[in-house]
């Protein structure tokens, strides 16, 4: 009898699970359920090309309705799942529908963290979905207040500046992207944003944020008052693991999975932002909020569910684009204690290499130098660092075309 594989969550991970199941020869039913009404799409352009108006929603679609039909992938879009019943192996949707599964994939991603004491308002934005991006795009005029100096806050600040919008950015930590970057790289980003006219307020918190009909007013901990047309809350995300927790799957700030993506229930797999998984590079259980992790962990989980030997062992990697600078981060450079330089990353053209005290690689950060990272990837996978004497010589230049 034909099997049914159900995927909850139609983002980068969900779409790649579906696609991979088919390309690996699965001939049963594939049902892909998404809470958003859109076909699965890529999120990285939402803070950049889509927000700027240079890319359309259509250009970000990962798996169109037509492609899904050709591959016999059944879409249930705009449908929330309310419960997973592991005993009877079925799920219940908010519209009352029950769907039975033989294997289940949870690829629900993450949701934005919000400030607890602030009432939602049309002038206070978050950015996760296409609909969020469309609303935020309408808000890019006058003065934008960005709460949070992480990657999303910085990318939106850069996009807003390129459209001539005034930007004030408030970050509670004393430096930008403190969770993922070492101080030397945070300093470069601060310089880049200051040079492009962003009013940066580091080590500063918001005591109160109020929204009015045509403005938002923030009161900072130091007593300063900032008035803006709109605010963006970009203070991180939390794993969307509620369904998994409710049905008793092992969770710990994310759904716990092994290196094949299998959860504590052998018939249920998970991939992407929502998982906490063993990472061969760091030697710890980590949760990653990146496009590459969402895609590549999903491909492994789909193969594993089909019984194809597979293990997710990639070195963490992500990129950002700000003011025409392509920033790529490999490994966990923030964990490094010794830093080496190739080219001039401190001026936006070169790479930092971060090593642990014992010489093992911790990570690397390339500024407009993605070619520098490529040879490091297989080395990092083997926990080896390049020969420093030859590595530190200057790097080949890279001229970004139009960046996604």
């Amino acid at each position, binding site marked *: 009898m034909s099997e049914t594989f159900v995927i909850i969550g139609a983002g980068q991970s969900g779409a790649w699970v579906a696609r991979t199941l088919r390309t690996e020869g699965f001939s049963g039913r594939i049902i892909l359920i998404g809470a958003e009404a859109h076909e699965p799409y*890529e999120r990285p352009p939402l803070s950049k090309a889509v927000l700027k108006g240079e890319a359309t929603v259509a250009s970000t679609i990962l798996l169109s309705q037509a492609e899904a039909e050709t591959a016999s992938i059944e879409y249930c879009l705009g449908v929330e799942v309310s419960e997973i019943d592991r005993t009877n192996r079925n799920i219940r949707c908010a519209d009352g529908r029950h769907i039975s599964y033989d294997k289940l994939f949870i690829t629900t991603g993450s949701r934005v963290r919000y400030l607890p004491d602030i009432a939602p308002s049309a002038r206070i934005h978050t950015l996760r979905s296409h609909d969020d991006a469309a609303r935020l795009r309408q808000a890019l005029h006058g003065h934008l207040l960005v709460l949070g100096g992480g990657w999303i806050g910085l990318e939106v600040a850069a996009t807003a500046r390129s459209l001539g919008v005034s930007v004030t950015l408030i970050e509670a930590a004393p430096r930008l992207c403190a969770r993922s970057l070492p101080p030397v790289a945070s300093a470069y980003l601060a310089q880049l944003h200051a040079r492009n006219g962003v009013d940066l307020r580091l080590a500063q918190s918001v005591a109160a944020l109020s929204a009015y009909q045509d403005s938002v007013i923030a009161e900072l901990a130091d007593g300063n008052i900032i008035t803006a047309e709109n605010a963006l809350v970009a203070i991180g995300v939390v794993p969307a693991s509620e369904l998994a927790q409710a049905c008793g799957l092992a969770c710990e700030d994310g759904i716990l999975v092994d290196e094949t993506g299998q959860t504590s229930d052998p018939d249920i797999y998970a991939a992407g932002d929502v998982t906490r998984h063993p990472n061969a590079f760091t030697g710890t259980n980590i949760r990653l909020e990146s496009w590459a992790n969402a895609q590549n962990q999903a*491909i492994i989980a789909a193969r594993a569910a089909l019984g194809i030997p597979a293990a997710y062992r990639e070195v963490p*990697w992500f990129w950002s684009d700000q003011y025409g600078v392509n920033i790529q981060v490999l490994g966990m450079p923030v964990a490094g204690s010794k830093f080496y330089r190739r080219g001039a990353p401190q001026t936006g053209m070169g790479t930092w290499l971060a090593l642990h005290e014992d010489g093992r690689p911790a990570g690397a950060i390339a500024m407009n130098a993605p070619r520098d990272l490529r040879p490091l990837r297989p080395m990092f996978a083997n926990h080896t660092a390049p020969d420093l004497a030859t590595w530190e010589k200057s790097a080949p230049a890279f001229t970004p075309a139009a960046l*996604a």
Partner: protein
Amino acid sequence: MRWLDAAAEQDIADGECLGVRVAGTPVALVRDGGKIHALHDLCTHGAARLSDGFVENGCIECPLHQGLFDLATGAPRSAPITEAVKTYPVRCIAGRIEIAL
């Protein structure tokens, strides 16, 4: 089919890429194991130049998102690539590389 001059053979070392413009079209020339391939110099996924990429195992890897294309056919060989990139016929004559668009 009309052959168009693209570059000098000596301009590309083995395992290297070269980005050129031929009659207005961006072309990535790649030498892999003595054979020269020509592909449209734009990734079908993101907006990156394949000539800034890496050559390995008969594929070219996009420098931005690590997607792989088959050098000979342009076919997708890894995620996130789902659409083939156009390839062009190549010939070498008197030290020059020529392609047909």
